[in-house]
């Protein structure tokens, strides 16, 4: 039984590693400017984790195989180096990993959160509410109208609670259910929640950020490839959470201009 157990551990460990090595189900292609840092981290961590995982399981299996079923008088032995050696090994191994991955890996985080805002970034406002995302563009005047939570009227498509009659800036605001952006253009997205906590997640952008009620946050990204990508909500927000999504539509500059003109005329 012990030897069978040892073999099982090895088989399971190898079988577990195969989908990773063969990349059966992995992250989609990265279409962002900061994503390669994250992907590098992921790859490096996978190497480290994979080796630790396989080594530990193999050693466990080997020792179970080797040291079970021994006769009563069999010689008991101490692992060479004893506890002290292993403690040192732990510090060295994990310490190096922490330094390499954790400390050096801060760059990828900094690229997302500490990068200075780009001067010619386009500002778009995203609003999350139960259970849809809406996006607002400032329009030709370049200014956002003031949103009023108490004026939100979804039945009449006034998702942001704008007051165009009294608010000049609001009149040319463009509201859309899809997030259209020009390719290779830096975007500055203001995030606002209408009701409870939500989150903005685009896998291909390697971007995820919670919407926090009462806290208006900004994320920055640049999409580098034309296409349609799913935006999904990842913060449990109620019964429609599973269905709360929108599309990121990355367009060429021309197509985007056309899109804007289209929306403005509606």
């Amino acid at each position, binding site marked *: 039984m012990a030897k069978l157990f040892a073999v099982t551990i090895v088989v399971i460990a190898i079988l577990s590693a195969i989908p990773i090595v063969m990349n059966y189900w992995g992250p989609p292609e990265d279409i962002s400017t900061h994503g390669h840092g994250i992907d590098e981290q992921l790859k490096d961590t996978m190497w480290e984790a994979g080796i630790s995982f396989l080594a530990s399981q193999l050693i466990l299996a080997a020792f179970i195989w080797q040291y079970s079923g021994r006769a009563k008088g069999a*010689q*008991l*032995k*101490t692992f*060479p180096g004893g506890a002290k050696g292993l403690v040192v090994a732990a510090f060295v191994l994990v310490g190096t990993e922490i330094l390499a991955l954790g400390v050096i890996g801060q760059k990828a985080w900094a690229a997302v959160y500490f990068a200075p805002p780009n001067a010619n970034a386009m500002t778009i406002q995203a609003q999350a509410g139960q259970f849809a995302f809406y996006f607002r563009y400032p329009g030709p005047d370049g200014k956002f109208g003031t949103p009023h939570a108490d004026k939100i009227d979804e039945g009449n498509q006034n998702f942001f609670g704008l007051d165009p009659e009294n608010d000049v800036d609001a009149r040319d605001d463009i509201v859309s259910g899809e997030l259209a952006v020009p390719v290779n253009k830096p975007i500055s997205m203001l995030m606002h929640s209408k009701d409870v906590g939500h989150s903005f997640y685009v896998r291909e952008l390697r971007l995820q950020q919670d919407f926090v009620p*009462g806290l208006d946050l900004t994320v920055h990204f640049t999409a580098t490839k034309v296409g349609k990508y799913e935006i999904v909500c990842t913060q449990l927000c109620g019964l429609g959470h599973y269905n709360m999504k929108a599309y990121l539509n990355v367009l060429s500059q021309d197509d985007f201009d056309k899109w804007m003109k289209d929306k403005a005329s509606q």
Partner: protein
Amino acid sequence: MATTLPPTITTPEKLPTYAGGGNGIGRLPGGELRALADRPPEPARTGIWVALAGIAMMFAALTSALVVRHGSGNDWQNILIPRILYWNTAVLILSSVTLEVARRRVAGYIRREGVRRAQAMQWLLVTLALGLAFVAGQYLAWLQLRAEGLYLPTNPNSSFFYVLTGLHVIHVIGGLGGLLRVMYLLSSPVPVLRKSTMDATSYYWHFMGVLWVYLLLLVCFAL
């Protein structure tokens, strides 16, 4: 690497000294085994410190909540502290003094140092009365706030005021229960009140006083 040494087992004539990894806690001069049984441990003493640690942690959490809440909204509106709180503080501190006197009398009674039980009981009764006065005083403070239109949900300051004082007074009432229990045990014809029980109850009560002073300062300066 590994060699087998012939095993050595000795069955000594007398009780052996420590074998294996002892850290010497409670090691007596002759190296004899720690005689835990000779000096019976008093779990009530350890227990009360553990309980106080938990209670302190709870109020620490509420303090952090207060700090964060202060910064999160722009609706912080300082409230005027009802003056009766200062009287209540004095009453509670006085009750700690009287309880300390009671505790020493009880100790003297238990150790049969000639203290009459009634002497100890009197001071306990005074403490109890002062404790009840504190509770009543806190209630009056609440009434005063209500009279000013400050209820639990009115603003974050009033919310924290009621929560902090409310939780504190609940624990004080628990302390009153402990006092009653001590008095009940003391009044029994057969001596059943242990010194450790009396001490633990006292430490709890004193802690309620210390905690109250902390909360008062917090309320005065932050709310």
